[in-house]
């Protein structure tokens, strides 16, 4: 199953389009599904004359319902995403965004939600639109990330039922407003990739160390002993688990974005094998 199919089948998808899978929902699409005997009321334009001639009975072409999805994404480009042990979280986020927009096909549209509005403003279809949206996200300058403002832009600009991906880290996720999150999840198919704290498993500090906040530039001198590292690890895990619970409660699909595998976050969120993205 592909990410697109998972979106179509997913429980999170609002029922505006009638829901269900592409194989069970048949309509006026372009993709051929099967031939069957003519039933009164069938669109006569769908009668397959060649097949009718071969079989001697009127045959109707059944087409798959043609659903154009809207892939939208909000990606944290703040300095905190430039951190990582061996690889910046921003690179993993880029991978996830590429996989997200790359999942679209046909008439699907791709939109990047930026601080100054959606890009492209009139969503383009296909690979060109996906590449444009991806580049727009990549080109967003590093700076303060306001998740609530971007969720508001998404809410104001995206068509109902759009698939919205948010990629950010825990500090920004903590700032997300629950009411907004629930409202967005009610209107759109929301997926949240939460960037994992690079130091979650083992804080790499021993003894006296100075930390510098990449966002504010503030510096802090502290002692880091075993007790401090253990306390940090526990708190970091608790924070991550708490955020995931909170996002799910608000109706979002969730995945953990590890710096080593951005696409894995999408696989985890949609419950599909990681290999489906390769």
């Amino acid at each position: 199953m592909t990410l697109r199919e998972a979106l179509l089948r997913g429980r999170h998808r609002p029922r505006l389009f009638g829901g269900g899978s592409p194989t069970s929902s048949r309509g006026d699409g372009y993709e051929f599904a099967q031939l069957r005997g003519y039933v009164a009321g069938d669109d006569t334009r769908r009668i397959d004359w060649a097949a009718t001639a071969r079989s001697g009975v009127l045959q109707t072409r059944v087409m798959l319902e043609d659903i154009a999805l809207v892939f939208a994404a909000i990606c944290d480009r703040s300095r905190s995403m430039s951190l990582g042990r061996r690889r910046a979280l921003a690179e993993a986020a880029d991978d996830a965004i590429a996989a997200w927009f790359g999942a679209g096909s046909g008439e699907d549209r791709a939109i990047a939600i930026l601080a100054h509005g959606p890009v492209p403003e009139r969503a383009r279809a296909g690979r060109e639109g996906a590449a444009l949206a991806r580049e727009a996200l990549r080109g967003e300058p590093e700076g303060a990330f306001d998740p609530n403002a971007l969720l508001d832009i998404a809410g104001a600009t995206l068509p109902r039922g759009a698939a919205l991906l948010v990629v950010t880290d825990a500090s920004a996720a903590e700032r997300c407003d629950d009411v907004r999150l629930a409202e967005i999840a009610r209107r759109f198919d929301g997926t949240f990739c939460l960037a994992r704290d690079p130091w979650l498993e083992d804080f790499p500090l021993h003894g006296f160390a100075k930390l510098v906040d990449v966002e504010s530039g503030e510096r802090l001198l502290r002692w880091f002993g075993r007790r401090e590292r253990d306390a940090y690890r526990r708190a970091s895990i608790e924070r991550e688990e708490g955020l995931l619970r909170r996002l799910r409660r608000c109706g979002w699909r969730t995945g953990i974005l590890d710096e080593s595998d951005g696409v894995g976050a999408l696989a985890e969120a949609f419950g599909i094998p990681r290999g489906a993205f390769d």
Partner: protein
Amino acid sequence: MTLGSPAFLLVAALLVAFGIWSLERARRVRDARDLAYSDLAFLRRTLGERDLPSALLRAVWIVGLALAGIALARPHLMLPVPIHDGAVVLCIDTSGSMASTDIVPTRALAARAAATRFIQEMASGERVAVVAFSGAASVVQPLTARHSTAIAALDTLPAPNGPTAIGDALALAGSLLGQRGPRTVVLVTDGVNNTGIDPFAAASSLGERGIKVDTVGIGTNSGSLIPGTSEAAGIDEAALRAYARASGGRFVRVENASELRGALGALGRVTSFERKSVDVSLGTAFVGALLLALAALAALGLGRVP
């Protein structure tokens, strides 16, 4: 202003340039060592605002800098300084009872050994005299600051014999001591005063002159017979205690050689202290430098391991 060696201005300029470069380099190294982190607020929330080791490090750094600065001002402190101008007279009983062997090898030999050690442990500059007494008191060694001479004089102590004239010994000791400085008489005896002037009056007289009399009663509790006699070598402990009290001194009872050594080690010390203004700039600079070195080591050596 004129310059004797203007060429050295170039050296000075180079030094300044080097200083600026090294400061900038140190800043870059420090910045590179700092761990970039995304959410200090979370870290503070997790680990708490209090960080005693870092506060201690800062305090050590500040105190070290302050001490180094203070050292430049050449600080002086009023401190008690030991003055080694005191005098001690050792009054050693050489009456017949000192030949008793209840203290090995004999009371007399044990007293001599303890006296030797006492003199050896005296501070340089302190003076010592030795008075021997039995039926009468005699000066074995007048006051001297040459401790080796006094120790040698102990070998000339007469053999134990005769009665015990404690009062005479105290009076003679008093005559040896001057009028100033810390002065002490250490009386080592095993007997009861049985001749000569009143020891209590002599001790009181010394006390009035500011001379302490420390008394050491030597011998086992049960006493023993004086060799060659049927007379018991007892101790008038109450009297010895009274002599000490009358002069502001102390009394100690010893029953073996090691106790005697310990008692003499604790008594008769004449080191006095005088409050003087002492230049502590060297010590202050040393402590300040030590604290700065400790802080630097802690901050650099114990820093994070990437």
